[in-house]
Structure formats: C-alpha cells, structure tokens
C-alpha cells in the first residue's frame, strides 16, 4: 500500500515538474530576450504601427509579436540554437545578401526564448485547421497564376530556385503554420501594414487563399 502511495506521489510530482517548466520557460525566455536586447531588431508588441515606407525601413528585423501564431511548434527552438538564413537578402534590402550572422543561443536559452515567443499570439489568426498539402490548385496559383516563386525561393529537384527578395519557402513545412499563411494573405495589413509583397486579398478569392496557404505550408 505504502509503495503504491509513494508511486502515485512520485507520478504526481513528475507531472507537476513536467508542467511547471512550460510556464517557467516563457518567463525565463522573456528575461533572456530582454537581456540580449533582441527587441532592438524584433518588435514583440502588437499591433503593427508602421504607416509609411520609412517606418518599415526603420525596422531591423522581422516583427515577432505574432510569432506564436506564425511558427510551428518546435521550429523556433531549433532555429535559435542553430540559425540559418530564412531570407536570402538582408532584411529590408534589395542589394545586400543575408550574412547569416544572427546570434546563436545555447540549447537552454533557445528553448526558453522559443517558449516565450510562441506565447505571443495574434487574435487575427483563427485556428482553421488548414492542413499543409501539395494541393494542385495551390501549386497552379504559386507557379502559374501569381508566380509567387518570382520572390520566394523553393526547392526544385533538390536545388534552390526562385527569386530572392522574399523569405525562402525552403523548409516552410517545418516553419509556417498554414492558418497563419491564410490570415496573412487574407488581411496582411494586420501583420505588416507596409510591405514589399503585393496585397492579394481581393485578387485571390477565399478558396484560392486557402489552397495557396495549404500549398505554401507544404513546401520543404
């Protein structure tokens, strides 16, 4: 009986210990984020305030105030511990290559900062359950109808192909939540009021935006 109780208590403690670090991770992550002055380049306060091109160009890195809605679970932790360029060009530049010099975090810091960033969500992104899929309709929009590859690179037969000015979609399957891609296409100004990418809402219809979000989310 005593052994059984001890075993139950042990299980309970393990469950509590397992649950607590997920909150601790967020708080610790925020501390690490602040200590490393990450906010000098990345906005963590929404909503977006940019009104002019100058406002957008003043930003030194992508805004992260909706990171928890945009990224897939597990991506940020991996990326922060071993950052690889997502954009072929430096942020806001059409001339300079991305030097890939983003600070690298220790495994512990990466885990905590990722937990903090994943806690930042936008109410704009609803959980629609759009599944990543190589939808033929999405593929036609991406490659033919709107030629998204003109700015976003992808992997074609093992090689990188496509334009360089937008974030690469190589690895988008690991990185992007298709529900966020849908929201971004549907109401881009909620996330980025001034941006180089054209607005497609009103050009693509609802069904096309969903197909495209699903296709983009499947690229790897």
């Amino acid at each position, binding site marked *: 009986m005593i052994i059984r109780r001890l075993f139950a208590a042990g299980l309970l403690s393990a469950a509590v210990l397992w649950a607590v670090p997920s909150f601790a991770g967020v708080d610790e992550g925020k501390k690490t984020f602040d200590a490393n002055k990450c906010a000098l380049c990345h906005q963590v306060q929404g909503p977006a305030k940019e009104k*002019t*091109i*100058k406002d*957008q*160009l003043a930003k030194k890195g992508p805004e992260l105030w909706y990171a928890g809605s945009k990224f897939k679970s597990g991506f940020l932790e991996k990326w922060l511990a071993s950052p690889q360029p997502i954009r*072929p*060009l430096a942020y806001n530049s*059409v*001339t300079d290559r991305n030097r890939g010099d983003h600070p690298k975090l220790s495994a512990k810091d990466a885990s905590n900062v990722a937990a903090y960033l994943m806690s930042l969500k936008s109410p704009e992104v609803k959980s629609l359950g759009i599944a990543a899929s190589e939808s033929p309709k999405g593929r036609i929009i991406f490659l*033919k*109808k*709107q*030629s998204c590859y*003109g*700015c976003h690179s992808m992997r074609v037969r093992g090689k990188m*192909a*496509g*334009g*360089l*000015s937008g974030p690469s979609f190589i690895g988008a399957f690991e990185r992007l939540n298709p529900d966020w891609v849908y929201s971004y296409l549907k109401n881009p100004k909620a996330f980025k009021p001034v941006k*180089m990418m*054209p*607005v*497609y*809402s*009103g*050009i693509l219809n609802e069904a096309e935006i969903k197909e495209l979000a699903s296709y983009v989310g499947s690229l790897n």
Partner: protein
Amino acid sequence: MRVKWFSLSIITFAFVLSAGASVASGEAVEDLYRFHCAQCHGLKGMGDGPNATREMPVSPRDHTSAVEMNKLTDADIINAITEGGPATSKSSLMPPYGKTLSKAEISSLKDYLRKLCNCKGK
C-alpha cells in the same frame, strides 16, 4: 523689385513641387519605386533587381530602355501595374499592385517610368 520677388516665389514653389514629388499617400514616387519595383527591376530600373535570377523564364523590363518602353502606351503601364503582367499579355511574374497602391500612386509611378526611359510611349 516686387516683380522679382514674385518670380522668385513662383520658381521656388515650382521647384518644391517637382523635387521630391509625392502622391496623396505622402510617399515620394522614388521611394515607392525603390520599395516595390526595385526587387525585380533594380534600383535604377535597369531590369537587374535581385529577383532577376538566371533561371527565371523572363527578365524584368528595363525601364531605362526607350526602345522597350516605347512599345507601351501609358494605359498599358497603368494596367500592368494594377492588374499584373497578364493584363498586357505578359508574364505573371509581374504581380498586380491594384490592391496595394492607390490610383494616384500608380499614375505617379507611370510618370516616373516615363522619366526613366525618357520616352513618351506609343
């Protein structure tokens, strides 16, 4: 003396209007071009932006080429910017900016392209 001051003010006013020409949004047309168009057409409009990679099926138009730009009417340019390349039977690699830029901004970009090519079109 008064006439001289008057002429000077007119000249100054005209200069202010022509330099840093901006549209209703307040954005200077040069900034609109550098921000939206240069990614494909290059900062100087020579068709050599970073997206003009070798494997692209078509090259972005060289906006400084009078020969190329003279093939287009002003309406063609406005249609291509608003609706994208297919509106003028060209590639969809030229995206539609009709939901991104205002009509005034698109018209100012058309004027800017005419300045770059130093041509009037057909």
